[in-house]
């Protein structure tokens, strides 16, 4: 029945991909993702994993190889971060448009310049509209569990889309913590072997990803969007089955003490744990604070997010990447606002930028944001950067 071990989260992520029996890994090293593919290359070289490890010369080539192998019917995995993602991004759109269920972990890191190897969500936001399903992990256990889930969902014939599993660079990727690693038989019972819906096969030649003339392009994009929208039901179903098998249940939006909360912090990723600690600290001072954490980033869980926050007075929405819109709202701030817009009664919203390029986010920072949101009186206020020097 598996076992509980102390392990660096990147190593556990690689072990999870190995437990999922990947056939092909094509990757290029980039901090802070490197340990994931490094460990996979060791597993292959040492004969522990029967897979093809393709060391490529760039992330652009990595995703190109992944597309080839996935199209040929191989279970395919890669990982990247930041600038690596930026270089890869051209091909990421093609992976989703060709409906190839590649799984990729992204150890989230800031984008240059100035050069930063540290954590924020700039790469995740950059990848927002690529058509990939995207989940966001809060801790190491979730990274492992979401990797199994990613293959399960992506390869489901009702879905057939690539899946990106986001984990905070360093804060998760380089963290040593206890993780329950399932054994192979348990994973096999959850994740059947990949059966491609169609594949490149010399005996039955097909073309994939050819030119789309104006008379077909719109239909192709509509079909792709419908596939992403429809994937949500399968994502939820696969989490239910995961919970029944492994005892850990996941939802698109996780909540913490939101039932009676006046102020709810809306966040993604590992800082949600600090947010929960802050909520407890504030509750000890008599303030009713809760946390709504977005685990499913794409497709965006609009109804699932509105339901737990609708009774609150104030939302504190955290953006972890500068979006340069020139406007008053960050990316997540804008997404949440669009959820609220169609509702007759909804909480007011304060949008904060925090934790850019590795700046630490403390319990005290959360207390400050909650304070500001509750003092706001519902008036619209432009975004504010927390813990910044003038």
């Amino acid at each position: 029945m598996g076992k509980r071990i102390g392990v660096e989260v990147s190593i556990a992520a690689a072990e999870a991909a190995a437990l999922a029996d990947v056939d092909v890994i094509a990757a290029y090293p980039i901090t802070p993702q490197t340990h994931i593919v490094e460990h996979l290359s060791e597993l292959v070289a040492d004969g522990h994993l029967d897979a093809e490890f393709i060391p490529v010369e760039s992330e652009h080539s990595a995703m190109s190889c992944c597309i080839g192998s996935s199209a040929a019917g191989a279970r395919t995995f890669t990982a990247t971060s930041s600038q690596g993602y930026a270089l890869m991004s051209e091909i990421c759109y093609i992976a989703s448009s060709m409906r190839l269920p590649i799984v990729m972990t992204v150890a989230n890191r800031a984008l240059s310049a100035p050069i930063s190897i540290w954590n924020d969500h700039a790469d995740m936001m950059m990848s927002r509209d690529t058509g990939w399903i995207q989940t966001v992990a809060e801790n190491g256990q979730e990274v492992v569990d979401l990797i199994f889930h990613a293959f399960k969902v992506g390869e489901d014939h009702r879905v057939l889309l690539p899946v990106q599993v986001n984990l905070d660079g360093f804060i998760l990727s380089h963290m040593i913590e206890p993780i329950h690693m399932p054994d192979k038989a348990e994973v096999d019972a959850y994740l059947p072997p990949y059966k491609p819906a169609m594949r490149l096969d010399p005996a039955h030649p097909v073309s994939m990803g050819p030119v789309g003339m104006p008379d077909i392009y719109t239909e192709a994009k509509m079909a792709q969007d419908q596939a992403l929208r429809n994937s949500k039901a399968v994502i939820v179903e696969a989490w239910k089955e995961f919970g029944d098998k492994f005892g850990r249940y996941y939802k698109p939006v996780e909540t913490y003490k939101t039932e009676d909360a006046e102020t709810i912090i809306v966040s993604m990723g590992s800082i949600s744990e600090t947010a929960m600690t802050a909520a407890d600290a504030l509750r000890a001072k008599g303030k009713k604070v809760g946390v709504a954490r977005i685990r499913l980033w794409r497709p965006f869980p609009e109804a699932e997010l509105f339901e737990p926050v609708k009774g609150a007075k104030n939302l504190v929405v955290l953006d972890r990447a500068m979006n340069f819109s020139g406007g008053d709202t960050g990316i997540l701030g804008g997404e949440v606002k669009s959820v609220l817009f169609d509702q007759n009664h909804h909480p007011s919203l304060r949008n904060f930028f925090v934790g850019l390029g590795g700046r630490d986010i403390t319990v005290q920072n959360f207390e400050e944001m909650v304070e500001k949101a509750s003092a706001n009186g519902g008036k619209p206020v432009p975004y504010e950067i927390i813990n910044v020097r003038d």
Partner: protein
Amino acid sequence: MTSAELTALAAIEEGKYAQAFPSFGPERRGAPVMAFVRVSDAPIRTREKVYEPNIVVVLDPTLLKIVNVEAGLRDGGIVILNTTKSVEEVRKESGIKGRLALVDASKIAMETMRVPITNTTMLGALLKATGLISMDGLRAPIEHRFGPIAEKNIKACARAFEETVVEG
């Protein structure tokens, strides 16, 4: 980072919860680096750095001249130092106010392992000065990490445990 990692692994081995993480810089062997450890009986739910430690372990005595190692130390906290000096000398020279535990880890490491690397040696001092982890919990992570040279590391750790002077 190695000693932080081994501490967390030992705690997890003992069934506790733990986090170990570096201060996320471009790390180079020999350069000053910080690493953080949290150990708890309950699941740990925070991702902040450690700003108010209960325990500070200093592997290199020269750091005392460039870093306030006592910054944020909690009431009743302890500073565990690799030093050749006595409690009185350290207190006079560094101005550290907190409780001290001292060991000449560099000498122990040189004599038992023939390298001036004090990670596992200082874990012996940590064992002696606090009840955070046990030698039983440490054994498996050290064996896994160091393979053929694990025994030497365990020996250095055990000797530091004997020789560490803990202020009452």
